């Protein structure tokens, strides 16, 4: 590595600062606006720092839109999706990673291909499928938590399985065999030995499924109504044709970002490693 001259150094850090401003600017605007009064937002020239600092937006955001309820809904749906994807995905990833069976290659290709299917294709069939399940088995599906969890789990699975497969491939197979010799059956070997070793991979996969469910808009729009509405949709309700409550919306945005930031900070290393390996190894 060659040393940089002071001038090069200056430009180097200048570019870094510009990048940071580009990334953080919109965030700063969200946070600062969430502390502004409605009068300031609507009536004055926009500034980066609130002229009168107020917490009203945070107090009132829940009276305009039941955002806390939507937040809880999203927590239930995203956590459910995460757990279901973890259980089903771990089994499948372990199966592909450890066993040779007829159709394995084909299955991996199908997994890759399903990631590419446009979600929009499923919208109407889903609607009809859910209705059919309700009519035939008497099990309500639309506007329920389990309906949405089921949907999101299946959409999160292909990428999750591929990501975790990559991770499990890096765990030596001798370890399984050792566990089998010690008297475990396959499920015990997976549960007692492999899962503890694969924790970083599992964390990445869980977070991926959680964030996917937290973000989704298309299916949430069709399959939920007021009872199960998610926070992603709730945020849109602050702007109606009659009134735009930007301050409250920004406060709600801050609120909606918290779980993702918390999860990310806790598992940053694993997520980054998981994303990179999932992406660079296909």
């Amino acid at each position, binding site marked *: 590595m060659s040393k940089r001259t002071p001038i090069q150094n200056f430009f180097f850090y200048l570019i870094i600062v510009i990048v940071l401003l580009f*990334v953080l600017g919109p965030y700063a605007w969200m946070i600062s606006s969430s502390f502004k009064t409605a009068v300031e937002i609507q009536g004055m020239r926009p500034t980066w720092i609130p002229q009168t600092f107020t917490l009203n937006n945070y107090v009132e955001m829940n009276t305009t839109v039941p955002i806390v309820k939507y937040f809880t809904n999203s927590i239930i749906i995203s956590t459910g999706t995460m757990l279901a994807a973890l259980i089903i995905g771990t089994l499948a990833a372990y199966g592909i990673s450890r*066993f040779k069976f007829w159709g394995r290659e084909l299955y991996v290709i199908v997994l890759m291909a399903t990631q590419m299917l446009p979600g929009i294709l499923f919208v109407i069939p889903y609607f009809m*499928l859910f209705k059919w399940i309700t009519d035939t088995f008497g099990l309500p599906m639309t506007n329920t938590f389990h309906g949405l969890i089921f949907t999101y789990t*299946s959409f999160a699975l292909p990428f999750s399985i591929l990501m975790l497969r990559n991770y499990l491939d890096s765990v030596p197979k001798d370890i399984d065999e050792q566990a089998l010799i010690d008297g475990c059956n396959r499920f015990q070997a997976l549960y007692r030995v492999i899962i503890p070793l694969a924790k970083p991979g599992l964390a990445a996969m869980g977070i991926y499924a959680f964030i996917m469910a937290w973000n989704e808009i298309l299916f949430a729009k069709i399959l939920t109504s007021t009872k199960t509405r998610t926070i992603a949709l709730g945020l849109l309700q602050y702007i109606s044709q009659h009134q735009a409550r930007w301050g409250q919306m920004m406060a709600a945005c801050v609120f909606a970002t918290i779980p993702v930031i918390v999860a990310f900070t806790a598992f940053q290393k694993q997520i980054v490693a998981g994303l990179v390996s999932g992406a660079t190894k296909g």
Partner: protein
Amino acid sequence: MKNVRLLGYIFILPAVIAMILVHIIPMAWGILISFKDLTIRTIRNWQEAPWCGIDNYIKAFNPVSTVGQRFMRSLRNIVFYGFFTISIGFFIALGVALLLNKPFIGRTFVRGVILIPYITPDSVAYNFWRFIFQSRIGILNEMLLRIGIIQEPIMWLVGRNTIWAVIIASIWKGWPLTSLMLLAGLQTIPVELYEAARIDGANAWQCFRYITLSYLKPVIKTIMIMNILWNFHAYNQFVVLFGENVGIHAEVPNTLIMREAFDNYNYGQESALSVILMLLMLTITVVYLYVFRQRAEE
């Protein structure tokens, strides 16, 4: 041995069942109804809806019909959007990845911070961009006015500029992941190569061209094809920034199909458009798998 094979099937079974229920059956159903004249009147009893052959497909490609016109326009828009979002995003990502690959004070911090756009939920990110783009009360116009780049506020969210608004917001959201992958690729390049090249008299550009880029080539290929595919999935950014009615300048296949289904209640037509979109994406996927195979063999 036979037992072991059976166990493999048992492990993947739950995932396979879920996928059949959620991907295969709905897909088949979707293809089926794309050949039917299924509307709000016939949805109650969909089996009774009349078959209409490939009418829905013909309409989609007929430049005279309303649907055909809209569909072509939406494809043009998504290609335009994708071209600028992906290319500009890629150059920012590559530039920043090269910087982050050099040692400097605070590197870990910067690397953490640039991931913020990626982890921010779509609904949050595009909602605050929507606020930033407000013509009178948004901060973007205010800053551009102060610096003197523009003389009067730009209407970002109405009319011609809409596509640029969504491009800017999507670049902000999308480049960090690309950058991270490129950085991972950069870190696999042995430093000795650069030293050897320098001794042989190579200049900085030659080092970049012949060492950096050739090492990054497989990663870049993957990133590009993934981005191109994801591009056709684009929906969230459009619906959050513009609401239900995105307007003709930012109409993309997904928003058009949603409108066809839930405003015009033309489910058969909606399905035909989705199937066309799927075939388009499958074509790109085949290319992707082909490229991936090649890489695995290298």
